[in-house]
């Protein structure tokens, strides 16, 4: 297990390759991005806009997938007020049992800011059963919901005849998921190959769900993309100050609400992420147990790159809070997918990375590595 | 577009049709109003003698004849088309505007032409060609007869009768394009644009 020279990113994330100077892809991108001429990129975007043709009778220029969180709120406002375009916002909403009050308030905030929003929400029981299957098959309950989230935007773009989709960050650049690299930095049409989507919906059919009950989870095919001339553009490529803290600092002044719990409960340093439901925090803990890094690592990595904090403070924060998840989220999750907490932990431990973690005599999980050093 | 108003019949349908297509429309019988438009239109409601009397009263007969000579586009619809001819036998013999030589005679067998009938272009005319074979709404019991050179389209109803006549920039339509739905809209647009930009 090796750490990035500049930040605290371990080399355990799938589809990522460190540079030979020992920099993780995100740091490499950050170093490279210092040389980017953002004005030139902005002009590329301005040149792109006139080519946007509205289908006859259609008055939207583009579609933006939103959860009501910091990234989407920032994007929506920037596209409307900076680029002068008229976006249709699309929100794939968790079922009533899972969506948080903060989440629905943030979507309401977007609507009351004058955006047109289509909110789609899949059948709650099917959603829960898929979550359960996803949890037991991938130890990641969100594999099915992520598929619905990623599919909802192109599905609606095709049905509403709005070919231009704005997406947030390019996973290939910002977080090192190289499989989604398109023709250039902002082409997002290979998003279908990102690791969250790569498993597709075949496993759902195999575990007994017939097609017409999982329609929201089916990502449109290449042919459907091409016949509707769909083009996904990563806005992250054009916005130089894109980041966790920055996006929140743009979104909060226009009404975004953030979490009030501290990192010891959420494993989220400032409570800026996963605003629309609680169980992603628990998922971060599972990710931590698989790969040895969680949400706090992501925060400190950003701040290490921008020099906002030094390495020792960062290591201390990661040591103290990374992978933390309050027991109340685990209880509510287990209640929702109807399993006992023992079953939960038994399953998690099966997916735990034995090289990085071990179970001590009292049954608790201890990490075997030292943050910033490795094993 | 200027609709020549000879005081009888309402022009709502023609006006709506023209405005739907995108033209600006003025209605009037005063020369200064009619001078201010690109294309003049003679609407199609009422009896021949009363219409000619009204045109005379407003001093429009001479005016229209001058405009025709000056290659001003003029379109006549149904009765308006018949007014373009030299004379008509409707009710009593009446002299027309004589912009297109020929006369208007009562239909005999059958005595009227009512309903949707197709038009066949007998001359290559770019304004009318796109409407060849389309159906339009006819509602008349008198018809134009004149030299074949002015006959652009005909329609068959036991006999053959002139559905479109043209001489220079003066065009006569025996049917009602403003009552012929999409086909009428298309033809009216082609004819007006064609005349105004020719």
């Amino acid at each position, binding site marked *: 297990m090796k750490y990035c020279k500049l930040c605290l990113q371990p080399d355990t994330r799938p589809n990522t390759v460190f540079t030979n100077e020992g920099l993780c892809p995100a740091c490499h991108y950050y170093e490279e991005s210092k040389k980017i001429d953002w004005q030139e990129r902005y002009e590329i975007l301005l040149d792109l806009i006139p080519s946007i043709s509205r289908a*006859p*009778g259609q008055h939207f220029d583009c579609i933006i997938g939103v959860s009501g969180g910091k990234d989407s709120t920032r994007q929506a406002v920037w596209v409307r007020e900076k680029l002068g375009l008229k976006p249709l916002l699309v929100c794939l909403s968790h079922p009533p049992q899972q969506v948080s009050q903060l989440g629905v308030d943030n979507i309401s905030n977007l609507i009351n800011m004058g955006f047109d929003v289509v909110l789609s929400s899949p059948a709650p029981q099917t959603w829960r059963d898929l979550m359960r299957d996803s949890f037991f098959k991938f130890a990641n309950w969100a594999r099915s919901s992520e598929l619905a989230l990623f599919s909802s935007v192109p599905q609606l773009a095709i049905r509403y005849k709005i070919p231009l989709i704005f997406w947030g960050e390019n996973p290939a650049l910002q977080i090192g998921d190289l499989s989604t690299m398109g023709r250039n930095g902002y082409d997002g049409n290979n998003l279908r190959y990102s690791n969250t989507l790569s498993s597709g919906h075949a496993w759902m059919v195999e575990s007994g769900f017939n097609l017409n009950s999982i329609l929201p989870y089916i990502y449109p095919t290449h042919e459907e993309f091409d016949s509707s001339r769909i083009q996904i553009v990563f806005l992250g490529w054009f916005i130089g100050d894109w980041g966790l803290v920055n996006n929140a600092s743009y979104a909060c002044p226009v009404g975004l609400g953030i979490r009030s719990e501290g990192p010891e409960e959420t494993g989220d340093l400032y409570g800026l992420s996963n605003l629309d439901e609680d169980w992603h925090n628990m998922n971060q803990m599972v990710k931590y147990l698989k790969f040895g890094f969680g949400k706090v690592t992501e925060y400190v990595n950003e701040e290490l790159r921008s020099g906002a904090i030094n390495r020792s403070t960062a290591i201390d924060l990661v040591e103290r809070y990374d992978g933390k998840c309050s027991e109340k989220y685990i209880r509510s999750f287990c209640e929702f997918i109807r399993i006992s907490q023992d079953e939960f932990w038994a399953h998690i431990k099966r997916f735990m990375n034995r090289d990085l973690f071990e179970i001590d005599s009292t049954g608790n999980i201890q990490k075997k590595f030292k943050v910033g050093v490795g094993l | 577009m200027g609709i020549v108003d000879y005081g*009888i*019949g*309402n022009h*709502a*349908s023609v*006006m*709506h*049709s023209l*405005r*739907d297509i995108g033209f600006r429309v003025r209605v009037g019988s005063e020369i200064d109003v009619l001078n201010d438009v690109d294309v003049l239109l003679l609407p199609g*409601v009422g*009896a021949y003698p009363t219409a000619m009397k009204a045109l005379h009263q407003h001093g429009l007969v001479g005016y229209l004849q001058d405009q025709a000579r000056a290659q001003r586009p003029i379109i006549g619809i149904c009765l308006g088309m018949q007014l373009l001819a030299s004379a008509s036998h409707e*009710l009593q013999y009446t002299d027309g505007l004589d912009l297109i030589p020929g006369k208007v005679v009562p239909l005999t067998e059958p*005595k*009227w*032409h*009512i*309903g*949707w*009938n*197709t038009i066949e272009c007998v001359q290559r005319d770019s304004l009318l060609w*796109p*409407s060849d074979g389309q*159906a339009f*709404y006819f*509602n*008349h*019991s*008198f018809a134009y007869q004149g030299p074949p050179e002015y006959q652009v389209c005909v329609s*068959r*109803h036991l006999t053959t009768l002139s559905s479109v006549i043209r001489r220079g920039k003066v065009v006569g339509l025996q049917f*009602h394009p*403003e*009552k*012929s*739905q*999409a086909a*009428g*809209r*298309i033809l009216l*647009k*082609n004819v007006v644009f064609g005349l105004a930009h020719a």
Partner: protein
Amino acid sequence: MLKKRLVGVVTVKDGWAVQSFGYKRYLPLGRPECLIENLDRWGADEILVQVIDRSVDCQIPDFELLERIARLGLETPLIYGGGIRSVHDGVRAIQFGADRLVVDSIAHDDPCIVRGLSEQLGAQAIIAALPLSLHSGRIEWLDYRRRCATPIPEDILSLLETGVASETLIIDWTNEGYPEAFQVDLVKMFPLSAVPLIAFGGISASRQMIELLSFSNVAAIAVGNFLSYREHAVQEFKKALAGMSLRPPVYESTLPGLTDA
């Protein structure tokens, strides 16, 4: 060549568009202008607006309604019927935007008015309405105001023979509004074979229309109630009448660039 026609009928009573059943039972439908505008969009070949409470209590034609219709800027020929008592009434109705007129009780009460109208406006603008029924094999005419059925009066037949009216509207009034009820014998046994007919009353199925349109003297089919139950009712009928020389069905598209050639 001349097309046969499908005429949409809007029956108006006390200012309301209504469904009418056998000239005596009515159900409310809505605003006459809304039904008329809808038939225009659907591409009916003609729209017949019949105002039925005028003839009974001798009021004048509903010029106010005609004016409201004119403001819609219709692209479909409009036929008006109801309350035409004089040549002046008829001419005014045309000036208010009607293309043709239906005369009903006046044809019997005062035929010379019908002749006057025909001279003023041309026979093509005049349609004579005959509410008929079959009694033991004989055709009877309904005197609407005195509510009794008698053989068709000779004066009406002779009036029609002179070609004063371009077409005759045969109304099977007892079957009006009832499905597949129109009695074809009213057309087969109609005394004047040369007079073009419009069949109306109880025509709900394309099978009936095909049979009726195959008669050379049937120029048009008129439908009222049965256009109010489905979207695109006119187009659906026209689709089923593909071979019968009617104008093809039209489905409006408001997108720019599609309508002009």
